[in-house]
């Protein structure tokens, strides 16, 4: 490491780059977020506590974190599958699938929400059959999870795909010639290599879901204590011009997400180290 840092860089010196990084992050991230904290300080501790532990707030945290988790997990499974198909097979229409994966990034989330609600409501294409089977999606927490799955899919696919591309088919063939079953090849050879990327994808999809508003408000039905997400609660505070109350709840979300993301990042580093130890590099 120390040798390489002395090498000439393509971009200008370390100090200038670091200075710029701090300046930029400060301007774009740190100052906006700290102003959030400043606004909250206008509340007394008791007011703050009362705001963030109101029964409706608690119900909203539960729904938001629960549905985001479910959505991120679903995306880990199915996103991996999509990435696998895209990397390992050549088939007609592959370019189309590639483009489809990115679409949730590009679509305004409100449009996504409206579309999903149309499909999943009782008279919609999917909804009429699901409802006949006794599964209500639109205007329930299931619907919230569906919307969050939609907007989170590209994260997993796009983080896993390059890693899969780096793994040569030779590795699988070698495992097979050594007598590994397909399952062993997957669980012992492939999975450990893609686990870090999978974790990153999960983290990104999860974080994205926590803050999502536009696509969820249409499909959730916004019923207090049942299908009210945290971002909606923040908006209702703003509608009362209660800026401090809104930031108080935002800060709880921020702290919770930050610790979660930190935990996942630590897990990520740990799994990375373990992988390096195993491959002996």
């Amino acid at each position, binding site marked *: 490491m120390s040798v390489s840092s002395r090498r000439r860089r393509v971009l*200008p010196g370390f100090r*200038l780059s670091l200075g*710029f990084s701090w300046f930029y992050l400060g301007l774009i991230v740190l100052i906006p977020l700290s102003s959030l904290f400043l606004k909250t300080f206008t509340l007394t501790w008791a007011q703050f506590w009362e705001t963030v532990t*109101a*029964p*409706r707030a608690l119900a909203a945290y539960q729904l938001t974190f629960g549905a985001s988790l479910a959505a991120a997990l679903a995306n880990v499974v199915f996103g991996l599958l999509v990435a696998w198909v895209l990397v390992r097979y050549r088939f007609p229409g592959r370019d189309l699938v590639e483009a489809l994966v990115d679409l949730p990034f590009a679509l305004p989330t409100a449009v996504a929400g*409206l579309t999903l*609600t*149309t499909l999943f*409501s*009782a*008279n*919609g294409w999917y909804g009429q059959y699901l409802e006949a089977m006794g599964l209500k999606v*639109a*205007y329930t927490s299931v619907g919230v999870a569906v919307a969050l799955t939609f907007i989170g899919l590209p994260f997993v696919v796009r983080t896993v795909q390059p890693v899969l591309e780096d793994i040569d088919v030779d590795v699988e063939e070698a495992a097979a010639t050594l007598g590994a079953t397909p399952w062993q090849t997957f669980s012992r050879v492939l999975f450990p290599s893609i686990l870090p990327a999978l974790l990153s994808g999960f983290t990104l999809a999860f974080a994205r879901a926590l803050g999502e508003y536009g696509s969820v*408000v*249409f499909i959730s*039905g*916004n*019923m*207090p*204590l049942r299908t009210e997400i945290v971002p*909606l609660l923040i*908006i*209702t*505070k*703003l*509608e*009362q*011009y*209660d800026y401090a*109350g809104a930031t108080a709840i935002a800060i709880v979300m921020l702290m919770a997400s930050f610790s979660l993301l930190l935990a996942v990042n630590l897990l990520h580093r740990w799994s990375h180290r373990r992988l390096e130890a195993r491959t002996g590099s």
Partner: protein
Amino acid sequence: MEGHFSPRPRPWVALLLLVSLAGCSRSGGDAAASSEGGSVTLLNVSYDPTRELYTDFNAAFAKHWEAKSGKKVTIKQSHGGSGKQARAVIDGLEADVVTLALAYDVDMLHDKGQLIPADWQKRLPDNSAPYTSTIVFVVRKGNPKGIKDWEDLVKEGVSVITPNPKTSGGARWNYLAAWGYALRKQGGGEATAQAFVEKLFRNVPVLDSGARGSTTTFAERGLGDVLIAWENEAFLLTQEVGKDKFEIVVPSVSILAEPPVTVVDKNVDKRGTRAAAEAYLQYLYSDEGQELAAKHYYRPRSQAVAAKHAARFPNVSLFTIADVFGGWKKAQAAHFDDGGVFDRIYAPQAR
């Protein structure tokens, strides 16, 4: 110098300069351009369903103003939820005039932003509300559930669609209309009104965040037996969107919805647009302005214009928010602020 020293840092310096320049350039342009020369630009910050009304009205006013003052006027429109629009203006969106859904949001321009005087509502006729509307019901063709009045909305098995009063200004009118009806009926009082409204909201399966969302839920998703809506939105739905699919039911009693307008003093004085902005709002009260309001299904204030369109706007016994609730601020505090009556309907112990 150049030969010896590699010019590597240059792009970065240029980038930094660019960033700082971009930061500065904003303050200069806008204000000066609007007032000088023969043209004026006005920004009208409004709420969602007035888009079509103001598209028509802006063209009419531009013609009128050019004939009168010789100046060209361009009016830009901004639409969104009423509260969201008010917050944008408080936070610095340079609106010359605001035309919002409720006086409470305009009051906040004074309370939170010091942009207008406290008595803004007295500056123009009719509480600064040049057109009005009311709250009516939309039911499915043939009115299968036989809905005639507010009383039918609290019946068992009737599903009612209305947006969330916490996030929608329009929904607050719906809620207060129901409350006012319950107060006025035989033996009505605060307690019976609260019980009535609670019962009504028990029949609401979905609380959309805005009025258009509720309209979509009712019309496109097929949810609910009755939609509580502004009269102008109800007309749009029955005459233009879903012809032959919906009917309007006018209840016996409803609320006089007065969407208010005002110039934003701090902004017009800064930008030098006061004359045009004031004329713009006054022109809403002219015959042409009133005709356009009626055309877009808002009830005109002018008796003469209203008489011409009497068939369109049936007689309803209307009460005002000042009469029944003592104004918007009181209504907001008692009903819609956190811990107010609306929250108690959904409080855990009440369920």
